[in-house]
Structure formats: C-alpha cells, structure tokens
C-alpha cells in the first residue's frame, strides 16, 4: 500500500495540540510563584550561611573557653571565624554568579544562549577565586596552628591532605564542566560564522 505523506510543515502545524489560555490573574500567580521560589531559595541560603557563621563562632568560642588564650588557641579560633566569613562570601558569590538573568526578546536567541553559556563557563572556571579562596584563610589558620606544637603536626596532616584533595577535586570538576561548555560555545561560534 502506498501512502502519500502529508507535507511536514502542514503535519507540524495541524497536530492536535490545543494552546493553553492564561488569564492575567493566572500569569500573576505564576510569576508570583516563581518569585516566591527564588525568595525561599535565598532565604534558605541566608539561613545556611547564618548557621555556618554561628557554628564557626561557637567552635571559636569553645576553643577559647576550653584552653588558655595562647597563640595556638587564638589562631584556631581566628581560623574558625574566618572560615565562617569565607562561607558567607562563597554563598553570596554563588547567588550572584548563578542567578540567571530575566528573559526577554530583545536579543537574537543564539546570542542570548551564548551569553548564558559564557556566564556559566566563567563562573565555573573562576570557581577557585570565588568559592575556594574565601575558605583558605580559615583553613590555613586552623591547620597552621599546629605549627606551634611540633607534636601535633602529624595529627592534622591527614585532615589537611583530605581538605586539599577535596578542594582540588572541586576545582578540577568545575574546570571540566567549563571545558564542556567551551566546546558548546565554540560550536555556536562556528555556526554563527557560517555564511
């Protein structure tokens, strides 16, 4: 049996796919829901940041209360406070760098798509600067405090090494993701240069 196929464009445009109709009230509700989701996410970030700072201050205070205020104790306490502050900076940066811009139709779509990719790639590639570096002063002080006590040096070597490996892995994984996006950007650029 031979079938005369319908023209693809006709087939596409005539498919049974009823369009939804949204009233202004429904659109308002949906927009509000989106804003609420973002607000809730931000709130949780603030709560998490607050908890990290509170925990850091608590550990710092505990360190100072449980031992004499000598150089190692002050260094460790200072380290935990810097760690808390570092977490706040990292969280603020995370929000700043990963919040997508509002969508509109002012620019051509592929330009908009490329700008999004570039924004994400740059955020991933610079992850050391804005996500790892804020924690480093805290870690350096905490682990560095053992330098005051030669006997304790070996006890922190393993945790320090584990921290270093974890942070290196974070940087490596983000750089790999950035490289994938770079490939996509290069592909888009090739497409845009075609004449």
């Amino acid at each position, binding site marked *: *049996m*031979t*079938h*005369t*196929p*319908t023209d*693809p*464009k006709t*087939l*596409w*445009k005539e*498919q049974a*796919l*009823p*369009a*939804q*109709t*949204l009233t*202004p009230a*429904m*659109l308002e509700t*949906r*927009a509000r829901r*989106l804003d609420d989701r973002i607000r809730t996410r931000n709130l949780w970030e603030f709560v998490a940041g607050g908890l990290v700072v509170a925990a850091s201050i608590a550990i710092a205070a505990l360190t100072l209360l449980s031992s004499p205020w000598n150089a190692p104790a002050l260094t460790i306490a200072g380290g935990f406070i810097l760690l808390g502050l570092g977490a706040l900076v990292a969280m603020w940066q995370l929000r700043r760098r990963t919040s*997508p811009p*509002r*969508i*509109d*139709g*002012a*620019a*051509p*779509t*592929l*330009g*908009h*798509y490329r700008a*999004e990719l570039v924004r994400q790639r740059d955020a991933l590639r610079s992850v050391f600067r804005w996500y790892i570096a804020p924690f480093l002063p805290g870690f350096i002080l905490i682990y560095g405090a053992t330098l005051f006590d030669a006997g304790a040096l070996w006890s922190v070597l393993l945790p320090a090494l584990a921290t270093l490996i974890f942070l290196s892995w974070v940087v490596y994984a983000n750089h790999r*993701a950035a490289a*994938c996006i770079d*490939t996509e950007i290069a*592909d*888009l650029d090739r*497409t*845009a240069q*075609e*004449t």
Partner: protein
Amino acid sequence: MPDQTKIERRYADIAADHGGMIARMAAAYEREPAARQDLEQDIHMHLWRSLAVFRDQCSPATWTWRVAHNVCARHVEMAARRRPANGWVVLDGTDLPDSRATPETVTDDRLTLERLYALIDRLRPADRQVVLLYLEDVDAAGIAEITGLTPGAVATRIHRIKALLARGFEKEAQP
C-alpha cells in the same frame, strides 16, 4: 514603562496569534505531558513579564519567538549538560529516526510526527531552533532575525532540513 492595561492587551493579541506555536514549541522541547504544559505556561509567563520592556525593538512575533526559545533553552539546559557530547546529531549526517517502523505503521502520519519529534530532540540548539522555525513557516529572513544567524547560514540549514525531511518522507512513501 508601558501601563498594565496595554501589556495585557498586547499579551492577549500575542497569545491569540502565537498560542499554537508556543504549544508546539513546548512540545518540541518537552515530551512529558505534565512538564510540557508547565513549560508552555512558563513561556506565557515570561512573555507576559517581558512585555514590560518591549519597546517595539522588533515585531511582536519576533519578540515572542525569541522569548519562547530562550525559555525552552533554559528548560533543557540541565538535560543538555547531562547529554554526552556525541548525543547531538548534525543535520546532514542523520535520518529521521525510524526505530519503530513496520510496514503496517510506517504510513501513519502520527508516526512521522513522532519521528520528527525524536529528530528535533537530538538536534543541537541552533539547528533545533531553525528546524522549528522552518516547520512554523517562518521565512529565512525571519529565522535570521530571530536567531541571529547569518542569512547564508540559515539558507544552508534550510537546505539540509529539506533534504533530511525529503529523505524521511520518501521512505514513508515506499510501498
């Protein structure tokens, strides 16, 4: 900023003129019915919001296409990140997927449509946008304006799309 009444009137006009296109685009980017409806509503919501900054920089149709594509691109972004690099296909290196075709079902337009959807799903973002605009009967100049591709690149892609669809439909016309 345009007043709310003007925005609502403009949105109503756009929804009436392009509602069908928005529904089809949502379907092309998301096959799961509930998620598809959600995406369609998201497009409407972003479109409605974006009208506050619409200053006739382009035609309402072009603006609508751009917003819709941008919302859909963001929707599939996460999925695309998970897709392996070799998961994409190029326009002139593929055929319409036909894994389910049998002599009994191959004549069915619905199956053709399914195959078309399957193809669209595997295309790179730039190709996907051009294919969808082509299927919606947007001319080459319009596609260039919406996507930002050069007219030459659009023409090349349309040529490949036509060849691809012809290959797929020829197969269907076989006895």
